[in-house]
């Protein structure tokens, strides 16, 4: 579903934020992407989502290169950034309508899915309000709904659980599991290692822009806790 091949990204001044990254995420995978602050997680995620331009390597979504055909890739993926700055001047429902129009979602399907997911996340009552009146968590919920209504094959999330209340957080985990059971893939970054341990079947650990560990969650952590493995790798690599 997602292939990252020799991906590198340098910022101004020549420092490499990500260095020769290779990852393969299959259909049905829930892939956790972990690393300390500034390790290159957000850079990688933004490049996958087609938000960040890059020159080295390639990223393939369902076999399509994000560099060569970004529109086709974006049509089948959904991206939620770590801080969802949405359009403050629209109401929640207008924003979802906008997303529905852009992805060409039919009227009935759109209405049903908006109702389904906003009920699940407890946001239906607030959909008529301006986004500027939303809390961080409510914006996060709206971003999640907007990502789900067009049924993406690949869901890319940057720190998705930050700001969500416990119920919404639980609901999102359920949704992720359900999506992956249906053959979709989810790739997300987080600092909450317990979530990765419980939710992900695969993990990748990145440090200084380089991949230092990757594979099935059980194999990577072995008998230890993910926190111990992570600390060991970060300290010794």
């Amino acid at each position: 579903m997602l292939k990252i091949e020799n991906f590198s990204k340098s910022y101004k001044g020549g420092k490499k934020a990500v260095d020769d990254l290779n990852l393969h995420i299959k259909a049905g995978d829930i892939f956790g992407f972990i690393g300390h602050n500034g390790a290159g997680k957000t850079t990688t995620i933004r490049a996958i989502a087609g938000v960040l331009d890059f020159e080295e390597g390639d990223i393939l979504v369902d076999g399509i290169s994000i560099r060569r055909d970004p529109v086709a890739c974006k049509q089948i993926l959904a991206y939620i950034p770590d801080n969802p700055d949405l359009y403050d001047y629209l109401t929640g429902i207008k924003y979802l309508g906008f997303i529905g129009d852009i992805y060409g979602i039919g009227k009935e399907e759109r209405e049903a899915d908006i109702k389904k997911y906003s009920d699940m996340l407890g946001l239906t009552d607030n959909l008529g309000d301006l986004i500027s009146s939303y809390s961080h968590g409510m914006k996060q919920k709206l971003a999640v709904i907007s990502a789900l209504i067009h049924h993406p094959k690949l869901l890319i999330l940057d720190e998705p659980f930050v700001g969500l209340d416990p119920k919404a957080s639980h609901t999102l985990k359920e949704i992720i599991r359900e999506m992956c059971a249906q053959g979709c893939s989810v790739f997300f970054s987080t600092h909450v290692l317990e979530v990765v341990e419980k939710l992900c079947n695969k993990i990748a650990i990145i440090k200084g822009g380089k991949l230092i560990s990757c594979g099935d969650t059980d194999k990577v952590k072995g008998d230890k806790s993910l926190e111990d493995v992570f600390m060991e790798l970060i300290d010794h690599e």
Partner: protein
Amino acid sequence: MNKLWILLKVQILGLFGISKFLHSKDKKERSKFIRFFLLFIFVFFSLLYTIVMYDYAIISSLNSIGLPQLMPALMMAVASLITLVTTIYKANGLLIGFKDFDMTMAMPIKTSTVVASRLLLLYLMNAGFCLLITLPSGIIYSLFVPQSPLFFVYLTLLTLFVPLVPMLIGTALGLLISAVSSRFRHANVVNIILALILTLAGMSLSFAFPTIITNPQAFSKVLMNSVYRIYPLTGIYTRALCQTDTLSLLLFVFISIILFACFVFLIGKYFKYLNTVYTTTRARSNYRMKSLEVSSVIAALYKRELRRYFASIIYVLNTAFGMVMAVIMGVALLVFKPAQFETILEIPGFADIIVTLAPMVLVTFVCLSCTTSSSISLDGRSFWILKSLPVKAETIFLSKIMVNLTITLPLSLISSVLLSIALKMNFIQVVFMLLTPAVFAVLTAEVGLFLNLMYPNFSWTNETAVVKQSMPTLITTLGGMGVSVALLVGLTKLPQSFQLPGLVAITVIVAVADLILYRLLKTKGVIIFRKLQC
């Protein structure tokens, strides 16, 4: 005092990308600033030249009727009026509803210090402009009425205090407009209309100045008597300057400072309340799912862009004002008839000249109405949404251009029709009355968009920074005006029989430029868009 300076310094560093220039190691960022600075210098000298020319014409007229002493008061009134009008819609964003409100108010700083720092920033912006108006006019006045060196000391001192009171009045009016409009459901629309009415009222006063030049005897004294009555500080200013009266100087400074201090105290008391009212949006939280509309991709992008446009008062006022003026010009010509203008303005042959040149006059207003020069930047931190959507960059460009044309084309059409009727144009003249402004409207939108792609700013905390003070906006507005005025003057220099062919040639050239620039947006513009980061 120290904290006031620290707050003020941070705000100044945020202006015009000064901080980026000082601290960025990126050569591109630094060269961007240098280009902006050079443009700023160019604008400064162009304005200075225009002001000096105006000053010279006014003082010559006043001198011819033996009233040169009206000059300093007149220019002080002009500076005050401009300060007042431009401050009305700066209050939003600078004093209330600014993005770093939470961060600033969480600091261990007195609220009055925060208010003072923001008002001082506003003062600095206005003081520069006031200096540009009153200092040259004072110098030119001294050429006609010789003055002692003390006059120049008083002139400089007084000029520093000229913007204070009008700025406070403008801010108070701006806050009042926000307070009144917040009671309406469509608060922004009411806010825009109220600010537009006030700005137009202010602008209508400035229309008296050409009359002072052409017919000083009738208007100068009447006008100045009204000014003294409406704004008594003008009288104190005149006494202080023309008679180098120290007591009047001290009185002027004292009144300005006291009013400033009272205003800071008063706003400081209600600062949190005002900001809370302004930033608290009504949340009904009672939405029930209903039938939803479905639109095409381009319609969805266009509607979103249009909502963005009308969500910003300063954006609307800054870009729609020219077109509103164009319609008013059409109505004025229809009501008063060109022949009457000829008599009032004492410009022989005005009616004949305006018939051929009307399309280019309208073009000048069209060039002032560029929404695209800040439409990329205004997406700010939510720019990631556009970048992540499965939509081609050129479709996004088209939606932004369409919004600009929505503002310019209908109002240009109305103005064209009014002018065509008022000036009794023939068929060919009507065609170009409609066509020439239209091709310029497309060009303005395309140039603005391309420049914004080249010089975006997503890290603004105040919309004014991109809507009024950014390089793309300055280039499109001033460049557009410069080009249109140059073409207008060029046409007037041609023999009358060559003016229409000249207009046709300009229209054809601009239409070709529209196509070339559209092609450029679809190629180079798309590449730049892909590299943009918020």
